[in-house]
C-alpha cells in the first residue's frame, strides 16, 4: 500500500479496496518505525490524521469527495497549521502554534487529504542539505550517511521512504527540486504567483513558491491542481484560472521543442550526472521532441544574485521574530535591547544569522546600489535570457543539481560550496518560472545507487507542459518507480 502513487491510492480508496483509516494507520506505523532514523518529521499528527481519515471514509462510503479524499499527505513545517505547532525548524518557533491554516493547508484539507504530520526542513528554509534544522539533520533514505537535500529535506525523505505518498514543499532557490533530485522524486516549483504564499512563513518573498514532492508527474498534477489558484489574501498571487493539469498530461511529446542549457554543462557538473541527463534528453528526442542547444549567458550569475536578493528580503522578513509577541523569548531581559539581542541570538541558528547579516549589509546606506540594485538588474538580465530562449523552444532542460547526494557534514564548514549546490535551480526562482525535477537514473558511489534529477524549466504558467513532458518521460522510463532499499 505504501509504495502506491497518489493516483493508485485514490483509485483503491474509491473502489473500497482499503479504507483511508487502514491506509493512514499503516503509514503512521511506518512513520513510527522508520521516521526517527531519517528524522523526517518534526511533528507527527497521529490523532488529527485518524480524525481526518475517519471523516474521509464517511464521505467515501457515501460516494462523495474528490480524487484526494482520504489520501494521506505531509506538510513542510513552514506552512501554518491551525492548532498544530509550526516551527520552521527553528528554536525561534519551537513553541509557536499558529491560530490559522495557510492557504495551501486549507486547500489540501478541503480536498479531503489526511494530515500525517509536519516535516523537517532547513531552518527557515535556509539551506541545501537539511542540516541547518534546529531538530537535527534529515538522512537520505538512499544512503543514511548522506543528506536528502534541502530545504524541503524532510518532505523528500518522507515521500522517498514511502512514509507518505506526497508532501508539500517550498522552493526559494531550489528547495523542492534539489531534494527531489537527491531522493528520486518528482518535485515541481510552480510559476511565482501560481500558489498562494498566505500562511507560508516567508524566507524571501519575491522568490518563495509552494509546490509538491511526489513519486510521479501524475501525482504532482493532482496535488498541484488542489493547491494552486488565486488567493485575495496574497497580493502576489495571480488571478488566472488553474488548468486541469491531469487532463493535460495527455498532450503529446511530438513537436516539443527542447532547449538544452549550455551553461549548465559546466566544469562543476559531475560527469556521471551529466551523462544521465544527456541520456534522458535522448529519450525525449527519440520520442518526437526536437532538441537544440540554447545559451543563457547571464545564468552563471544567478548564485551571487540570489545571495544578495534572498538575504536582503530575509533580513527584513525575519525582523518580526523579536521575542515580543510570539516565538522564543530570552530569560529575564534587562532591557529592550537585551530582549532583542538574546531572543534573536538564542532563537536563530548560524546559517539564518549569516543571511540576516548579509542581507542587512547589502541594504545598508552606501551599499544598496552596489549590491541590492545591481542584483535586481542582473535578475532582469537572467529573466530576459529565459524569455529569449522561450521564443525558440518550449522548455529548457538540464541537470537539477551538479552532484548526487553528498555526505552529511561534507559541506557544512564552507557556505560557498553549499550555495553552489543550487547553481542550476536558482535561475527559475529569479525569473519566477515554473520548473520541475524528475528522476533520470542512478550513479554509483560507495557501492550504492544514488538518484539523479533532470530539470525542465518552462515559460510562466506552463506547468501543464512541464507535467505532461514529465509524465510521458515516466511512461518511457521506470527510474521513478524505484524505492530505496529497506523501504520497499
Amino acid at each position, binding site marked *: 500500500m505504501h509504495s502506491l502513487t497518489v493516483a493508485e491510492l485514490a483509485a483503491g480508496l474509491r473502489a473500497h479496496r482499503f479504507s483511508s483509516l487502514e491506509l493512514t494507520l499503516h503509514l503512521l506505523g511506518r512513520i513510527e518505525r522508520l521516521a526517527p532514523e531519517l528524522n523526517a518529521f518534526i511533528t507527527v499528527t497521529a490523532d488529527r490524521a485518524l480524525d481526518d481519515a475517519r471523516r474521509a471514509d464517511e464521505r467515501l462510503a457515501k460516494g462523495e469527495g474528490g480524487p484526494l479524499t482520504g489520501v494521506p499527505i505531509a506538510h513542510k513545517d513552514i506552512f501554518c497549521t491551525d492548532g498544530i505547532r509550526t516551527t520552521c525548524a527553528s528554536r525561534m518557533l519551537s513553541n509557536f502554534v499558529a491560530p490559522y491554516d495557510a492557504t495551501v493547508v486549507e486547500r489540501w484539507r478541503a480536498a479531503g487529504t489526511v494530515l500525517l504530520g509536519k516535516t523537517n526542513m532547513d531552518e527557515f528554509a535556509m539551506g541545501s542539505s537539511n542540516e541547518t534544522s534546529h531538530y537535527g539533520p534529515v538522512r537520505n533514505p538512499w544512503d543514511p550517511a548522506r543528506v536528502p537535500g534541502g530545504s524541503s529535506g524532510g518532505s523528500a525523505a518522507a515521500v522517498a521512504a514511502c512514509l507518505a505518498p506526497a508532501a508539500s514543499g517550498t522552493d526559494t532557490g531550489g528547495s523542492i527540486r534539489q531534494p527531489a533530485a537527491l531522493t528520486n522524486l518528482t518535485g515541481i516549483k510552480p510559476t511565482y504567483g501560481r500558489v498562494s504564499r498566505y500562511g507560508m*512563513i516567508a524566507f524571501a518573498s519575491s522568490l518563495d513558491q509552494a509546490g509538491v514532492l511526489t513519486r510521479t508527474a501524475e501525482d504532482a498534477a493532482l496535488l498541484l491542481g488542489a493547491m494552486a489558484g488565486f488567493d485575495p*489574501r496574497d497580493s502576489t498571487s495571480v488571478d488566472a484560472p488553474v488548468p486541469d493539469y491531469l487532463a493535460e498530461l495527455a498532450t503529446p511529446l511530438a513537436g516539443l521543442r527542447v532547449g538544452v542549457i549550455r551553461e549548465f554543462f559546466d566544469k562543476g557538473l559531475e560527469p556521471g550526472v551529466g551523462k544521465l541527463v544527456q541520456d534522458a534528453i535522448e529519450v525525449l528526442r527519440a520520442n518526437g521532441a526536437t532538441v537544440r542547444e540554447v545559451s543563457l549567458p547571464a545564468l552563471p550569475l544567478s548564485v551571487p544574485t540570489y545571495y544578495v536578493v534572498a538575504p536582503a528580503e530575509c533580513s527584513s522578513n525575519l525582523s518580526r521574530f*523579536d521575542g515580543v*509577541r*510570539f516565538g522564543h523569548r530570552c530569560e529575564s531581559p534587562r532591557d529592550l535591547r537585551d530582549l532583542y539581542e538574546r531572543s534573536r541570538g538564542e532563537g536563530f541558528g548560524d546559517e539564518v544569522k549569516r543571511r540576516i547579516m548579509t542581507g542587512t549589509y547589502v541594504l*545598508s546606506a552606501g551599499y544598496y546600489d552596489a549590491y541590492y540594485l545591481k542584483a535586481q538588474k542582473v535578475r532582469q538580465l537572467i529573466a530576459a535570457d529565459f524569455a529569449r530562449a522561450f521564443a525558440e523552444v518550449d522548455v529548457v532542460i538540464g541537470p537539477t543539481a551538479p552532484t548526487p547526494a553528498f555526505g552529511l557534514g561534507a559541506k557544512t564548514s564552507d557556505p560557498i560550496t553549499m550555495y553552489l549546490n543550487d547553481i542550476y535551480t536558482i535561475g527559475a526562482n529569479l525569473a519566477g518560472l515554473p520548473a520541475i525535477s524528475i528522476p533520470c537514473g542512478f550513479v554509483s558511489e560507495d557501492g550504492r545507487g544514488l538518484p539523479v534529477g533532470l530539470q525542465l524549466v518552462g515559460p510562466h504558467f506552463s506547468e501543464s507542459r512541464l507535467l505532461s513532458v514529465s509524465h510521458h518521460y515516466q511512461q518511457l522510463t521506470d527510474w521513478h518507480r524505484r524505492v530505496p532499499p529497506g523501504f520497499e
Partner: protein
Amino acid sequence: MEWETVIGLEIHAQLATRSKIFSASATAYGAAPNTQANLVDLGYPGVLPVLNGEAVTMAVRFGLATGAKIARRSVFARKNYFYPDLPKGYQISQYERPVVEDGSLEILLEDGTRKIIGITRAHLEEDAGKSLHEDFHGLSGIDLNRAGTPLLEIVSEPDLRSAKEAVAYMKKIHTLVRYLEICDGNMQEGSFRCDANVSVRPVGQAELGTRAEIKNLNSFRFVERAINYEIERQVALIEGGGKVVQETRLYDPDRGETRSMRSKEEANDYRYFPDPDLLPLAIDEATIEAVRATLPELPDEKAARFGRDHGLSAYDAGVLTASRELAGYYESVVQGLGGNAKLAANWVMGELSGALNRDGLDVAQSRVGAAALAGLLARIADDTISGKIAKEVFESMWSEGRGADEIIEAKGLKQITDTSEIERAIDEVMTRNPQQLADYRAGKDKLFGFFVGQVMKATQGKANPVQLNELLKRKLGG
C-alpha cells in the same frame, strides 16, 4: 544680522478609511487595547498585507485637489527598524516613488497677500502602534490598535518663512482634507499632526542653514510656539558663535521649549527597499477621472464664489469656508433668507460662532439650525425686530429651541413702527425731562442719545430705531 527662517512641514493625516491600510481590522478610535489588531496587524508569521483601495482613492483625491501629479505607478517600500510597537520590524511606506508629487496650495497671509506653497509629495504609509509607559510599573504596554492605520504623509517644499505662515499652511491642509472627507482632522486623537523642519540663514544667503526637525506637533498653537522657540534658539546659537546640528527635537508644551531627541549620527539606517509582498501600485487614467468626478467644490473655489456672488470680503469668505460644514450652514441661511448675504455672514461669523465656541459645539451640533437662523434674520430684514432685539431672540432660540416668530410673539418683542405710538412715547419723555429738553435746545447736542435711550426704555427697546431717530430729531427741534 538679519535672519531669514526656512520651514518645511511633514503633515501626517490619518485617512478616514473604515479598515486598515493592509488588513481588514477596524480603525475606530478609542477601542480597548489590542481589540482592533488582527494577525496581519500583529505581524504574525506567514500573513501578508493586502492594500485597501479606499486609502488609494483618498490619496488620489488629495493629489487632484492640490493640482499634483498622480503617479501611474508607485511603489511600497519597507522602512526597517526595531521597536516593540512596530510588529513586523518594518513599516510599509512609500519611499522613492510616492503616489502624489508636485502639488501646491495657496495661503492667505495676515496682510492680505497670497502665497503659493509647494507640496513636494504625499505618500501612503501605515501607522505604528502605541507604547504605553505610564500604566505599568517597570513595564511597558503595547497597544496595536493603531498599527496599520492608513496615513497620508504630506511633505511641503521649504517655502514657509515664519511660524505664522506654517500655521496658515497647516490650517489650509486641515481644511482641505476635511473638505475631501479623507481625514477627520481630529488633532487631540492624533488624526492630524506634523513634523516641522526649521532652519535659519542670513537674509540674502541662497544656501539653506542646517535644519532641526521638531517631531509630532499636534496643535496649531504648538506648531507656532515650537517654531518660534526653535528660531530664537538657532539664531542665539549662531550669534553666540555656535553651530546648529542636524537633529530631531521634541517640543515640550509645558516648558514651551524644544529639546534634542537624537542627532544625525544616532539616526537609524532604515534600509528601505521595495516591499516584495506588494505589487507596484498602478493607477490608470480612468480611475483618476472617476475620482476627479467625485471631488466637492474646494475651499478656494467656494471662497471665490462667495466673493463674486455674495459680495463678501476675502477675509469673510475665508472664515466662512474654513470648514465645509460652516460654509454649508452659511449658504443655507442665505438661501432661507432669499439673499442678504452680508447679514447672514455677519450673524454666522458673529452670534452663531460665538455661541458655538462658548458651548464647545461643532456647527453640525448647533442648537439653532440654518433654517431657524434664516427665520430670525428675516425678521430683522422686514423690520419686525431690531438687530439688538434679534440678539436677545437668538439667545432664547439657543436655550429654548423655539423659533424666532414664536419667541417674538410670546415676549411681545415686535418692533413698534406705528408713528403715532412712537410720537406718544417721545412726548411723554419730553414732558418728564424739561431740563434736558431745555439744555438740548440750548445747543447740547450730546443729549440726543439720552432721549433715544429714554424712549427705548419706555418702549422696552421695541421702537423702530430709524423711525425713532427721525421723529425725535423733528420733535426735539421744536
